[in-house]
């Protein structure tokens, strides 16, 4: 099940990673090579086997349904690229110049 260049570009978009053309070609080969080693799993009969999502032994305990203090906004501001009035500032979802390119 080799990975195609289109696959790489598609999953890169899903993962919000900009990949240039040369790197896309390299990644196509690398991911195909890695996934070829995974094919061995298809030979294992798991029809009657349950899946394991985690190995914790305590389940998922619930804490009391009460509010807890959040991280103070001053602490957030110390690490945030841009904040104003307690809100994170981000670029516009799309600009007029690039609305078609961004797909928005």
């Amino acid at each position, binding site marked *: 099940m080799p990975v195609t260049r289109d696959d790489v570009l598609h999953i890169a978009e899903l993962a919000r*990673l900009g990949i240039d053309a040369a790197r896309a070609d390299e990644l196509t080969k690398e991911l195909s090579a890695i996934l070829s080693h*995974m094919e061995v799993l298809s030979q294992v009969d798991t029809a009657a086997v349950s899946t394991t999502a985690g190995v914790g032994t305590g389940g998922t305990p619930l804490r009391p349904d009460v509010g807890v203090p959040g991280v103070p906004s001053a602490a957030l501001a110390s690490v*945030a690229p841009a904040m104003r009035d307690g809100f994170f500032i981000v670029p516009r979802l799309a600009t007029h110049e690039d609305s078609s390119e961004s797909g928005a």
Partner: protein
Amino acid sequence: MSVDNYTQLGAAQIASSVRAGESSPADMVRASFKRAGEIGAGSDELNIFLHADEKASVEEAEEMQPRIRNATDIGVLAGVPVAIKDNIATLGLPTTCASKILRGYVSPFEATAVARLRANGALVVAKTNMDEFAMGSSTENSAFGPTRNPVDVRCVPGGSSGGSAAAVAAGITPIALGSETGGSVRQPAAFCGVVGVKPTYGRVSRYGLVAFASSLDQIGVLGRTVDDAALGLEAIAGFDKMDSTSSDADVPIYRLSALGKPAPEARNPDTEAIRIGRSPVPLPPPPSATTLDGVVIGKPKEYFPESLDPEIRRVCERALDRFRSMGASIRDVSLPRSPLAIPVYYILAPAEASSNLARFDGVRYGLRVDPGKGLKAMYEATRSEGFGPEVTRRILLGTYVLSAGYYDAYYKKAQAVRTLIADDFRAVFTSGVHAIFTPTTPTTAFPIGAISDPYEMYLNDIFTVTANLAGVPAISVPIGRVRRLPVGGQIITAHFDEYAMFRVAYALEAGLGAEAHQ
């Protein structure tokens, strides 16, 4: 006691000296930085540290002095310098995960494991280099350059906790924290000739550990000796309300396991406060012919394949002989699905990573690269510039195996085979085997730059990754050298049976003596 022989002191000796007033915490911190300078821990040599501040560390140590004079709650690690892997959040020192995307980031909160070390009297002296976001087996994937192995500077220290292993191997700190997803504490411990322990999944809180693959991640401890690792783990283990996967199972006094007897029943409720009040119990006498009486050690054939380096096999057999001479019996066992562990791991871990690392988007913290073309372009530019090649590769791999059309064939299949791998361990441990012994790694440390194929690098984890998939505890102990490079032996026990794991590890270390480093 003099600090002149600092590099030879175990954590318990340092704590005893500090408690007795023979030396001060500041003496120990200065000795740690002196050693770092002597051995060349800086970025132009071994490149062990990503962040260290001697002045601030000495000041912190001096502030501890009155607490030692006046209080009894100093903890088992009073005055012990420790190093912390740079994916574990620390107040006052950056936490970058060795990634450009978090360059300069200082966490506004502290990891529970670090807070517990401090509560037990330990002093954080450095954040250590690592593979970016813990993705790697050589510490070559750091955005800030590779760490070199103190045993042989031409070689890698292993990874991803390579900086922590190197700090301990170089004698800078007797204890360091690392983290494991597939062997990232045990493999570098083996490569650097130190002890590395991965506890049971849930034994140690991950609050403040930057998430890579949440169903696998655990904080672990590297130590100069088994005793250092035992004291370090005891200090950080136990329930934490900040991590819903942490267990409330009692934390035994692991040092008692060195006496060669089963774990005593807990007489008091196990609480963090009680553990902080403990003093190290005395170390036991040397091992005898009865130290491991009644202990059954499994030798799984899948971990001793025909292709195993004959010299690594030889030192493993020597270790097994020591077990026999201390009264243990060796039983051939099988973990038949272990050869499938690497494919399973390299589907599940990247899948989880692709989700966990979505948070690094240039919005709330870390790097932002904004080309001025809207939000999506900012996301892509930030992540492309911020993540290195291996992290990018794994995010894409994880995104692929989770995407429509491939989810069942890869991700769901890997989850099912993970069940089978865990079942294998359960079957061995319920058959009367107390501990499993294997080589930690198939090779010794390799030269920097020697492995360029990603999958070949992944195979470094072949003997360690199964314990992560099954969630069981495991420890790597030095068992000898091959071509002058250290070899680690791995001891694996059942869930939450770190006590038995330490019992066997203490015995092996004492049984081998100087041979462990020959």
